[in-house]
């Protein structure tokens, strides 16, 4: 399958990219890892007139801590996240999710930020960014703005990014005494999630300080289970608390039946994975000096 014809540019500077996006607006698409965009072109789901390849830019590949937060640059590949010792030590939800994104070949090219900007409701990173309370940094010729992950998704394959904006970075707060998990059900390696749950728990004085729960493939976008988060905030870790949060997370899901399962089945997967993820996350946070 050939993509439809388009013009292609591979600028060397961010300014050039932003100028092109400002000039071409909706007619231009940004090419990062291409692992969603190129299939979209081949299947003729989109026909942009111009592809702006950002792979030749310097400075967008950082995956590092800076001033109390993790910076995930626009060219950080899933592979980089999977292999990052920093994520394994300090960002457990991200570390758990990275190896579960698609398959190794896709992870070698696909990017974290590209996946967020693509906004597939079955994408993994959106749920993770909701759970860890990330901020997404959009740049345009007019400047930068920070968008909270919870404000970023606007429906299936739709974000609040403007056509002249580039998602240059995701920023994740560094939190001590934090555990995390990403539990994903898939029919085979490389398949999209039937359903998945991202969990983050940060302990304070032996109690749950705050928790983040993001859901994958059970709604029009990645969802944040806000009511489940609310009952966990300040709670004593207990089976009852986890079970209640899990029920609320399942209630927050609005799955559709498809070849991967019925709506009821997927909702139940969310409930089970949330409870399991909370157990794992609290144990991990406690082991990390949580008391």
């Amino acid at each position, binding site marked *: 399958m050939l993509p439809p014809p388009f013009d292609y540019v591979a600028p060397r500077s961010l300014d050039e990219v932003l100028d092109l996006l400002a000039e071409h607006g909706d007619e231009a698409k940004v090419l990062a890892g291409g*692992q969603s965009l*190129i299939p979209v072109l081949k299947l003729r789901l989109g026909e942009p007139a111009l592809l702006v390849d950002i792979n030749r830019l310097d400075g967008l590949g950082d995956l590092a801590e800076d001033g109390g937060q993790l910076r995930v640059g626009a060219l950080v590949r899933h592979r980089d996240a999977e292999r990052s010792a920093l994520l394994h030590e300090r960002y457990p939800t991200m570390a758990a999710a990275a190896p579960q994104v698609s398959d190794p*070949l896709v992870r070698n090219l696909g990017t974290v930020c590209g996946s967020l900007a693509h906004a597939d409701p079955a994408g993994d990173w959106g749920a993770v960014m909701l759970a860890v309370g990330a901020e997404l940094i959009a740049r345009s010729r007019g400047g930068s703005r920070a968008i909270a992950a919870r404000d970023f998704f606007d429906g299936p394959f739709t974000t609040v990014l403007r056509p002249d904006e580039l998602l240059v970075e995701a920023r994740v707060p560094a939190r001590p005494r934090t555990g995390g998990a990403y539990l994903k059900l898939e029919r085979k390696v490389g398949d999209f999630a039937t359903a998945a749950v991202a969990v983050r728990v940060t302990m304070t004085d032996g109690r749950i300080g705050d928790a983040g729960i993001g859901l994958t493939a059970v709604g029009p976008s990645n969802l944040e289970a806000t009511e489940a988060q609310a009952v966990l905030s300040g709670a004593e870790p207990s089976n009852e608390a986890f079970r209640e949060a899990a029920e609320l997370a399942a209630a927050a899901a609005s799955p559709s039946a498809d070849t991967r399962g019925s709506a009821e089945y997927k909702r139940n997967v969310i409930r089970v994975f949330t409870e399991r993820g909370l157990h794992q996350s609290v144990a991990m946070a406690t082991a990390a000096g949580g008391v």
Partner: protein
Amino acid sequence: MEITVTVNGTAHRVDVEPRLLLVHLLRERLRLTGTHVGCDTTSCGVCTVLLDGVPIKSCTFLAVQADGRGVQTVEGLLEGGQPSPIQAAFKQEHGLQCGFCTPAMLLATKALLADNPDPTEEEVRWALSGNLCRCTGYVNIVRAVRAAAATMRGPEQTAEPEREEVPA
């Protein structure tokens, strides 16, 4: 667009449409048909090539993106006209049946062993999890990869137990 892509060590200057996929450049322009097209939807991995040593799906990568970069295909695996240790191990261990996925398996194996010269069975299966074999030949493929790894590591440097010198 004029691009220069080094394939199996040879630089090729070619004029391509931006929409041309790397796999079609390789197969149709350079006549390197060892790289196969399977699903054409980023699922099966039979179009795997190495891009600067990293395995990617060449059906999901534009030829223009490869400008200035190095690509290795199965045709580049021979060493001095002879099968490489990876190819020899796939033959020896019967790591193929129909052979359709084999070029991709060989290249994914090369990338794995460059990273990890002594992978466990679990690590081999993980590394090849983006490459489908529909003959269900995974058992022999995994065996072949580990055999290749052993050959490439050379004679095992097993530590001899220390022996006490016993005076006569």
